[in-house]
Structures are given as structure tokens and as C-alpha cells.
């Protein structure tokens, strides 16, 4: 799909921009990945004996694949609500810099914070990747409407998939279930790598992958936080050190 040129009358009106955003969902392979991922999440929720409404609300209100997988699998394995909440909140820290990075692409000087609430809610790895790809081709005054369309489209895809996965769960083979669950780590690894612009990002990702299995041996309950802070800080330090050496 190609978006109309920036000065085209096709961009007149927020509704049209919303429509282009909605249509953009069909132009990305990440929609397919999202669809299959949420089939997996729906099936996982079913197998862990949560209700259909629970699965639907988790997709609409949490709107973050890894957080949902972690929530279902920790609660399902009998961990306490507090342990679950800690694991979920750690997986969600990434949303903070993601929102901070996405909003300047969308904001205009006159934009109020409340106009951006829904965009902050839609922000997750898929939307973040697609914003970098599509927004340069969208007139700035239409970007809020466009991202609302894009986010609604992606959420609709995920919602339909959650329901299908939930309904099909009993009939899914174990192999299919395994393939679907493997999709999340693969898709997250490659989409994060693709968006990594600085050495610090690549280093943080690589060190984080290697350090987690070591930190998991501590069995502290906050292993991901331990490996994440250590790996992230080392990556940041290397980045600063290189910057200083280049300046010198």
C-alpha cells in the first residue's frame, strides 16, 4: 500500500486520515504476526481456565503480548498476585521510553495531553515500529487520526485472534500451540533489532539475552530486573565511553 502524497486532498479531514491508518494495518507483515500471537494468547488463556471475557479484556486493556503471556503463565503456575504484578510491570518498563519516543512524532505545539491518551494506550512494539515507517508519509496535522486508525486496526486484528484462539484452543495440536508461542520471542527479537539505531540498543539486547539465564539461577523473583538493569547499564556505559572517545 502506498499512502497518498502529503499535499493530496486524500488527507483532508480526520476521518479520511483515520481510514488510511486503518488500511495501513493490512499493509504490514506485523499484522500477521500479531494475529498468530494473539491466537496463542487466546488459547493460553483458555487452557489456564480464564473466561472469554477475561481474555478479551486482557487484550483490550493490557494490550502488550509479552505482559499477557507472563500474566497468564505466572497466575496459571500458582504464583501470587504480587509476584505476577511484579513480573508484568517489569516486562512493561519498555513502554515508557517507547511512548516518549512515539509522541514527538505525533505532537503539534497546540496538541493537548488528553488528545494523546489513546495513542499512549495503543503504543506497543507493533505500533512503535509502524509509526517510524508510516508517519513520515503522513501530514503532521493528521497524524493523531492516522495513529488512532492504525491502533484500532491492530487492536481489532488482535481481538479477533484472541477470540478465535480461545474458541479453538481445545482443538489445537500441541505442535501448533508451541509454534504460536515461539512467535512472540522471534517477532520481538527481530522487530527490536530492526529498530535498533544505536550500538547501545544492540548491546543491551544481546547482553540482556545472555545475562537472563545467568540471573535466573539466582531465583530472586526479580531475575529479569537484575539482568535488565545490569545489561542496560553496561550498554549505556559503553555508549557513553565511545561518545567521549569520539569527542576527544
Amino acid at each position, binding site marked *: 500500500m502506498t499512502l497518498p502524497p502529503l499535499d493530496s486532498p486524500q488527507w483532508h479531514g480526520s476521518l479520511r486520515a483515520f481510514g488510511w491508518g486503518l488500511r495501513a494495518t493490512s499493509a504490514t507483515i*506485523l499484522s500477521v504476526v500479531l494475529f498468530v500471537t494473539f491466537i496463542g494468547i487466546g488459547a493460553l488463556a483458555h*487452557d489456564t481456565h480464564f*473466561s472469554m*471475557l*477475561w481474555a478479551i479484556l486482557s487484550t483490550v*486493556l*493490557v494490550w*502488550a503480548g509479552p*505482559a499477557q*503471556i507472563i*500474566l*497468564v503463565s505466572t*497466575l496459571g503456575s500458582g504464583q501470587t*498476585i*504480587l509476584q505476577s*504484578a511484579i513480573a*508484568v*510491570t517489569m*516486562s512493561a*518498563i*519498555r*513502554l*515508557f521510553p517507547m*511512548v516518549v519516543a512515539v*509522541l514527538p512524532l505525533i505532537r503539534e505545539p497546540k496538541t493537548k495531553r488528553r488528545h*494523546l491518551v489513546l495513542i*499512549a494506550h495503543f*503504543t506497543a512494539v507493533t505500533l512503535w515500529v509502524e509509526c517510524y515507517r508510516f508517519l513520515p508519509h503522513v501530514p503532521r496535522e493528521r497524524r493523531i487520526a492516522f495513529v488512532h486508525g492504525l491502533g484500532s486496526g491492530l487492536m481489532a486484528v488482535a481481538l479477533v485472534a484472541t477470540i478465535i484462539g480461545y474458541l479453538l484452543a481445545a482443538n489445537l495440536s*500441541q505442535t501448533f*500451540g*508451541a*509454534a504460536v*508461542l*515461539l512467535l*512472540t*520471542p*522471534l517477532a*520481538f*527479537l*527481530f*522487530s527490536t*533489532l*530492526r529498530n*535498533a539505531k544505536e550500538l*547501545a*540498543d544492540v*548491546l*543491551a539486547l*544481546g547482553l540482556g*539475552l545472555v545475562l537472563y*539465564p545467568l*540471573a535466573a539461577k539466582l531465583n530472586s523473583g526479580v531475575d*529479569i530486573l537484575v*539482568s*535488565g*538493569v545490569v*545489561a*542496560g*547499564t553496561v550498554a*549505556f556505559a559503553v555508549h557513553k565511553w565511545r561518545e567521549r572517545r569520539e569527542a576527544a
Partner: protein
Amino acid sequence: MSDFIGDWHALVVLLVAGVIPNQIWRLLGLWFGSGLDEGSDLLMWVKAVATAILAGVIAQIVVQPPGALASVPWELRYGAVAAGLAAFLATRRSIFAGVVCGEAVMLAGKWWLG
């Protein structure tokens, strides 16, 4: 209908353990984002830590797999991710090639093991 809704306790748990711990970070981004310079050191550090935590989440799903993924032996899970990474790099960063190759290796391996 009650099957559809399930028990209310579970929905409260969803809110307390799922929705709030997740949304708080988006709200913080919305609240403080406008005051932060995108190139500031603090944000660079937060980004690096967030990326490393995401890497930890990725590693956790592969190392301590949930649900049906636990039926795949670890050699095959690690091999599939490595093969996907190789395909991703060989195709000049195609997410599609990486995902398809990783999945193909896992499925082929599972079929071969029986």
C-alpha cells in the same frame, strides 16, 4: 453467559496484576515524556535498560517456556532462535524471513523427533 464472564475475582486479578502494572508505564511516558529530551542521558539509560529487560522477557519465554512450548526440547528452541537470527541478518533485517525460518526449524525439528 456466566461461562463467558467467569468469576469476578479473576477479573479483579486481571486489573491488579495485569492492567495497572502495565499501564502505569504508558501513563508515565505520557506525563513526563514531553519534559524529557529524546537524546538525554537519563532517557538513553532507561531505553537501554528497557531493551535489556525486553531481551530478558524474550529469553525467559525461550528458556522457561510457557504452555505447549515446553514440549519442545531446549536444543530445538535455542536452535530455532539462532536459525531465525541468521536468516534475519542474511536478508538485511527482514523480520518476516527471521520469523519464518525460526518457526520452520522448530517445526521441522519437532517432526523429525516425532
